[in-house]
């Protein structure tokens, strides 16, 4: 407030004070119309400094059959040994009899920015002869994290920063068969797509030629559409035209065909991450070879914050609304969590749900 008054006195009044003209229909006063430099954009700097001090949290879940390269890919993405495989002493690669989830957390730092990265692994998924309901432990886990956050939020004395263990992104690994989605893929993505952002990837894609890769991707996209599966970035959540253009480009390319490795080789005098075979070296970060770079850009460089926002504003809110609706039937207290399979298919509640959802999301986007 003081700064403003000083500026007014110093600068000579040459133009009338900015006011809303007829042409200015949006009601926003643009920077060039302002009477001098106000310094609003310094807010961005303040935000940056605060977040850098506080750090980010990011929780990523990897799901897929054993041997599809999940741990290697996560290590390659974050250029450090963050997977469960690298952290457990005496790690043995054997197939476990049940699906259980294990999470490993690390704090990684880059250019002063700290990130607390949690990788949630799902060993045993899809490895048995009978894989019915192997997705249930995963659905349960995701809902439990939402429940934890909800309980903390509803507390009278709540922490300043609620610890966020919600799953921000679920990377689902598809084996590079070249045909279609398998029944287990459809079942899993159909259920999880409603409660978490799924990013499907084609694993070990160095067994597909470029034509095969294109055909496979097309078929997968058709399959996803035919089964009503929504993967990230979801069309409904595009905020404006700019987002839509960017996300459309991504949507035309998913699922990304990736290859992961932690070994380096010499190619043309440079050290590159790659896999060396008798017929050539597959460079992981070369976009002509595989789409690892696109995946990394999506997950980390451009859409990391968006993933968190979608989880918080959409998936979490949907869960919250559902739970609160349940509690309203039982009085004001939050009813005990009934373990269901995480779908919002209660037909009698549907109309209420979508309306409440919209108002809630509207509010969430309105406030900063």
């Amino acid at each position, binding site marked *: 407030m003081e700064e403003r008054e000083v500026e007014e006195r110093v600068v000579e009044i040459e133009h009338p004070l900015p006011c809303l003209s007829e042409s200015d229909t949006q009601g926003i006063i643009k920077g060039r119309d302002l009477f001098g430099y106000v310094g609003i954009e310094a807010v961005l700097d303040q935000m940056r400094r605060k977040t850098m001090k506080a750090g980010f949290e990011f929780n990523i879940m990897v799901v897929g059959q054993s041997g599809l390269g999940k741990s290697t890919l996560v290590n390659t993405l974050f250029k450090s040994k963050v997977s469960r495989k690298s952290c457990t002493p005496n790690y043995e690669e054997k197939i476990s009899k049940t699906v259980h989830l294990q999470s490993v957390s690390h704090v990684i730092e880059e250019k002063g920015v700290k990130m607390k990265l949690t990788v949630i692994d799902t060993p045993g998924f899809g*490895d048995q002869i009978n894989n*019915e309901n192997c997705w249930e432990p995963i659905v349960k886990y995701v809902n439990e994290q939402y429940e934890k956050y909800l309980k903390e939020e509803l507390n009278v004395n709540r922490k300043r920063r609620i610890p966020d263990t919600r799953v921000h992104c679920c990377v689902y690994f598809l084996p590079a068969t070249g045909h*279609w*989605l398998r029944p*287990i893929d459809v079942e899993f993505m159909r259920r999880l797509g409603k409660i978490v952002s799924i990013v499907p990837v084609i694993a070990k894609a160095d067994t597909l030629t470029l034509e095969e890769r294109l055909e496979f991707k097309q078929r997968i996209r058709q399959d996803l559409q035919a*089964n009503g599966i929504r993967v990230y970035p979801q069309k409904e959540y595009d905020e404006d035209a700019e987002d839509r253009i960017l996300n459309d480009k991504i949507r035309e390319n998913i699922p990304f065909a990736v290859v992961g490795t932690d070994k380096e080789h010499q190619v043309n005098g440079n050290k590159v991450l790659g896999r060396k075979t008798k017929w050539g070296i597959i460079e992981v970060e070369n976009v002509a*070879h595989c789409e690892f770079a696109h995946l990394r850009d999506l997950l980390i460089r451009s859409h990391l914050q968006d993933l968190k926002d979608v989880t918080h504003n959409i998936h979490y809110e949907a869960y919250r609304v559902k739970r609160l609706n349940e509690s309203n039937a039982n009085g004001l207290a939050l009813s005990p969590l009934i373990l269901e399979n995480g779908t919002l298919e209660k037909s009698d509640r549907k109309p209420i749900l979508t309306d409440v959802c919209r108002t809630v999301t509207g509010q969430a986007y309105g406030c900063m």
Partner: protein
Amino acid sequence: YIAETILTCDFQDKQYVGFATLPNQVHRKSVKKGFDFTLMVAGESGLGKSTLVNSLFLTDLYKDRKLLNAEERINQTVEITKHTVDIEEKGVKLKLTIVDTPGFGDAVNNNECWRPITDYIDQQFEQYFRDESGLNRKNILDNRVHCCLYFIPPFGHGLRPVDVEFMKALHEKVNIIPLISKADCLTPNEVKKLKDRVRDEIERFGIKVYQFPECDSDEEEEFKQMDKELKECTPFAVIGSNTVVEARGQRVRGRLYPWGIVEVENQSHCDFVKLRNMLIRSHMHDLKDVTCDVHYENYRAHCIQEMTSKLAQDNRTDSPLPLLPLPTPDVETERLIKMKDEELKRMQEMLEKMQQQMHEKDQ
């Protein structure tokens, strides 16, 4: 005629009888008759089975195939499909039958997904058994499965539960040759690791895969060396291709990637050549022999035992005498009884067949 033979004897060495030409005679007869071979391919969808079969026999057996999508697959059960093709090379005819198993291992719940496959193999044995015991044995159709190529995905860390269960269900009915499929996604180190791991697990779980017969000690050194190399290379890591690409100035079967060209017939790239040599050029006949002498005989003995024990059971329960504990006959008499029962059964079957044929003739 006799004069001719005496003449030839005089011309050649007196000790030379002439039956050394027998292999040639057999050869000539077989060439005229032609060979047949039934090969089964099993494994999940998308492991390159069709492509490999096409590459092995240089044909396009799956031209008009339509792939099912995920919705259709949710309700799919394991099917057995057969394609037969007649191949001729240098005057030798081969009637090749490929038995495919679409749907194996694709569902969410794959409990006992090998059941249709074991049933099929047993059915072929049963059909051959009946034909063999019949009266007209001139034109028996041999549909028995001589070899089963089982495709192990390269994506895992070794054998998965479904692989182990499948092979254990089939190893006493058919010759199993495990293969590591789509080996172009593995580096040489990874191939070696996976092969060691699979060999270990095969031994640990007691799976009896097809063993190459030992070389005779009087074979050539080169052959013995080749044989040894072959044995150490199992399970074969294979790559198949339906396309021909240009590599190193030649047109070869291969796969074109942005990072290089994989040549299917290049031994340093994959074991396809070894598999083809083994399957077709050196061990095809042995595979058929083992099927006839071991697997089929096991089935036959098992079948007969079951039949006789059933008969014996039936006879005892039908007895009008009070159920006093019968004195158990000693082993020798039991064996004689079994033999007589077998003969009786065979006679009965032959009688039935004769009656049927007479019936048909009358009509």
